């Protein structure tokens, strides 16, 4: 029973972190219509930033700054926002597809830096000993899990409220107007490019924050955590939840993560161990097909406001 409670807290924490990433994506895509295929890259930037700034000194890489966790999270959000703003600056005055291609490239390069710049990122071995909130509770597994869940839930809640507020503010209205009818909005004197860069940067900041929160939740990061599959999962979450809705983003994250974990342990239970890698790839096929089917038949998602685009 205790185990189950602990696992429930762990599962919810993981799902909520995905929800946080999906919230960032919803600002970029749902509200502004910017297509980001490099989510994993931005999450990784946040995770590595905070990890490097907060970890104790390590022999073979820069570090030893020993910042408090909260300062690391803030820095992660700011650094990721800068990276996103630069990506947006380079591409958003051009065709919309160029942003997609460039974010794809960002993810590739971040992965490469994480793997090869050993002096900065620890290379394939990653960064360990990332301070965890409430580390003093670690002996009491359940209390520790729930304390972490509380931290993560409050971060998600705060971000949710801030984003809700933001999307109702004049700033959010401009973004929606730009998405619906760019010509009319620019005719009213709103600079499409500048607003889009802002939205992309703020969405990036949320993704970076999510990466940092996840890094401190697990306590260890490595390049393998940030493969294209992550990008893909978050997209599936937002599409299931319904793009444009912050509530949908979080609900979609929980549902898709439950399906992902559930089908994972299901195949692990029935498929012989030598075929497990194959079964895992079938899981991705299923999600890919699902994403396409949603695009075809239910583009507004399942939990969204149902508002027609």
């Amino acid at each position, binding site marked *: 029973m205790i185990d189950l409670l602990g696992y429930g807290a762990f599962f919810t924490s993981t799902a909520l972190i995905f929800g946080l990433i999906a919230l960032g994506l919803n600002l970029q895509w749902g509200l502004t*219509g910017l*297509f980001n*295929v490099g989510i994993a890259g931005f999450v990784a930037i946040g995770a590595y930033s905070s990890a490097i700034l907060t970890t104790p000194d390590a022999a073979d890489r820069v570090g030893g700054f020993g910042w408090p966790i909260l300062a690391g999270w803030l820095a992660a959000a700011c650094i990721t926002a800068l990276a996103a703003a630069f990506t947006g600056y*380079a*591409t958003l005055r*051009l*065709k*919309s*597809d*160029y942003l*997609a*291609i*460039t974010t*794809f*490239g*960002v993810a*590739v*390069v971040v992965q*490469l830096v994480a*793997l*090869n710049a050993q002096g900065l990122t620890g290379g394939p071995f990653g960064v360990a000993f990332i301070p965890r909130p409430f580390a003093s509770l670690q002996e009491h597994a359940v209390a520790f899990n729930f304390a972490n869940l509380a931290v993560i839930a409050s971060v998600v809640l705060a971000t949710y409220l801030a984003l809700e507020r933001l999307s109702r503010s004049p700033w959010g209205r401009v973004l929606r107007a730009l998405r619906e009818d760019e010509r009319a909005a620019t005719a009213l004197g709103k600079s499409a490019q500048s607003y889009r860069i802002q939205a992309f940067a703020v969405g990036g900041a949320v993704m970076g924050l999510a990466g940092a929160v996840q890094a401190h939740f697990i306590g260890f990061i490595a390049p393998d955590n940030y493969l*294209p*599959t992550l990008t*893909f999962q978050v*997209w599936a979450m937002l599409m299931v939840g319904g793009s444009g809705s912050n509530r949908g983003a979080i609900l979609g994250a929980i549902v898709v993560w439950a399906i992902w974990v559930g089908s994972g342990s299901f195949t692990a239970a029935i498929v012989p161990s030598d075929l497990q*890698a*194959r*079964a895992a*790839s*079938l*899981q*991705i*096929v299923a*999600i*890919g*097909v699902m*994403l*396409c089917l949603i*695009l*075809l038949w239910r*583009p507004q998602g399942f939990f969204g406001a149902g508002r027609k685009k």
Partner: protein
Amino acid sequence: MNLQFLLDGLIAGSMIGLGAIGVTLTYSILRFSNFAHGDFMAWGAYAALAVVGAIGGSLPMAPLSFGWPLLLAMVVAMGLTALLALTLDWLLFARLRARGQSIIVVMASFGASMALRSLLEFMFTSRPTYFSRAIQIAQPVGFGIRVTADQVALLLLTLALVVGMHLFMQRSQRGREMRAYSQNPALARVVGIDVDKVVRATWIIGAALACASGVMVGVLVQIRPLMGLDLLLPIFAAAILGGIGSVPGAVLGGLIIGLSEAAAVQFVGAEWRAAVAFVILMAVLLVRPMGLFGVAER
């Protein structure tokens, strides 16, 4: 200084260029960047592998590591890859295109790409495989450069495909229609161009060239489900560098990217190879977003 990297870059560049032709055509005619294009390469390579297996035996032709069965298999696989592209278009892209939001089509191609790639991993596992395990002896050709017979043959094949493509686009009726449609879809409709045929031709050409490129990667390097994903960024960068819609631009862009990658391997380190395409892409977007042969947006 060892000049071998020039040859390596030329070969990598021609494979990237063949892929970029498909991307640039899809972008200029169907108006979306197809993230599944790399997976057409991988599917093409595996299709050729399956056909070679079905024919049985490789019967290598003297200095080459492959023989006529592989060439035959490549032609069959090109057809199969085209069939795959047409099926995807019919099931997915055409329906979404009809709704008129091009970014949704991009997203669908992203989902399809993930599914296609993982399906290959499911069927063939992620372990690399080869058309032939024979070792080829590289012959010196001067300036410290060594070349294998396979490399020469495939460079010639690329040259033939590119010249053929160029003539097709410039001289044939269908090629002219494709160019007309990419420049002005509305006007092309008015003068009676059959849009469905243009769309079909675009998919067939793009997929067939992707398959050829995939088979070449398979002959010279190896076949893996992720081979297409790894080439996707260089291909996009090449298409944008060359100027969207330009076939010679795509090939030239591919060669530039391939040579730069090889130079980076030589002078910076092999582990940074994949970053080269990104650096070039960013430079093009910041300095000359229309590319080398592109036309400015209206």
